[in-house]
């Protein structure tokens, strides 16, 4: 029996492995892109901190007083 580092199965499933790899990279890009877009859409960047897992009212920006 010949011992090979590169098993025949690796060759056979190369296309599949590459495809899954690309899908994962694409998924990461989407989640990262969404994060950037959602954070930039916050009017006041301090609101970002309100996404902490507990309620921290002191971080919520004061509503501007209208006269």
């Amino acid at each position, binding site marked *: 029996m010949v011992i090979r580092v590169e098993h025949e199965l690796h060759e056979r499933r190369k296309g599949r492995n590459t495809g899954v790899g690309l899908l994962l990279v694409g998924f990461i890009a989407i989640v990262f*892109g969404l994060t950037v*877009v959602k954070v930039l859409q916050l009017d006041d960047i301090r609101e970002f901190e309100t996404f902490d897992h507990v309620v921290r009212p002191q971080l919520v920006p004061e509503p501007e007083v209208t006269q």
Partner: protein
Amino acid sequence: MTDFSANEQTYDAGMGDYFALLKPRVMSLVVFTALVGLLVAPVPVHPFVGFVAILCIAVGAGASGALNMWWDADIDAVMKRTAGRPIPSGRVAPSEALGIGIGLSGFAIVLLALATNFLAAALLTFTIFFYLVVYSMWLKRATPQNIVIGGAAGAFPPMIGWAVATGGVSIESVLMFALIFMWTPPHFWALALFVKSDYGRAGVPMLTETHGRDATRRHVLIYTVLLVPVALGLGLTSIGGPLYMAVAVVMNAWFLKGAFDIWRRDDAACEADKHKVEINVFKVSLYYLFAHFVALLAEAAMRLYGIGGWSW
């Protein structure tokens, strides 16, 4: 002897086989109508969020296609048109299709909910449920009206696109849904009139075989007549306008004439010209849907310059 004989099989599914599970051609129609639904909505969507939303809708639709192929593998194997699909041809195992279908559905729904809003995600969930459970499992093998109610699954995408942008449902999105919903039966039955199908052998009730071809012709005409007010009514809403109305009037007259021509014919006439009229009406039905949605898109584009809609 090899060191791992369990993998000694003749064929390994490639990415292309898994992609075929997602019914790419159906997906392209879903992408187009969902994109129009999203773009004609009065609320602007960030381009990247819009892209992700359309991707989620497409993947959700693809996932429901995979689930449909998993459920219908037995009848797909019997029919010539579908015998080459990944499962009946033995390229993908049924359990793999089920796994991919469920997995991609979950991904698409959760990502859509996080990227946009819960209503859009709920509508996508309902679409997948409707296509798999109501159409594939329940209606398809039970009634020749399967295509009528099942067509709702294909009609949801513009409504989801609209919900992505607005977070709601309105008369505009309901009418876009109704347009595809009412269009599907005459479109499909025109096809059924000229394609030699083997639905009967597979045990799927099809109107041409259960009620005959004359009844099918009558149904094409009736549903086309019912389609007209929906198409024109959409033109009176906030997303319509003179351009859409002009397109709608022309396309509806054309489609209606075709349906009328079909209704007047009998089998002898069909055989004589090799179903020329039916084939032509089927093509018209494709232009019909495409033209309506392109016109909606054009109205939206014109509104950006203040010349679209009824207000100017």
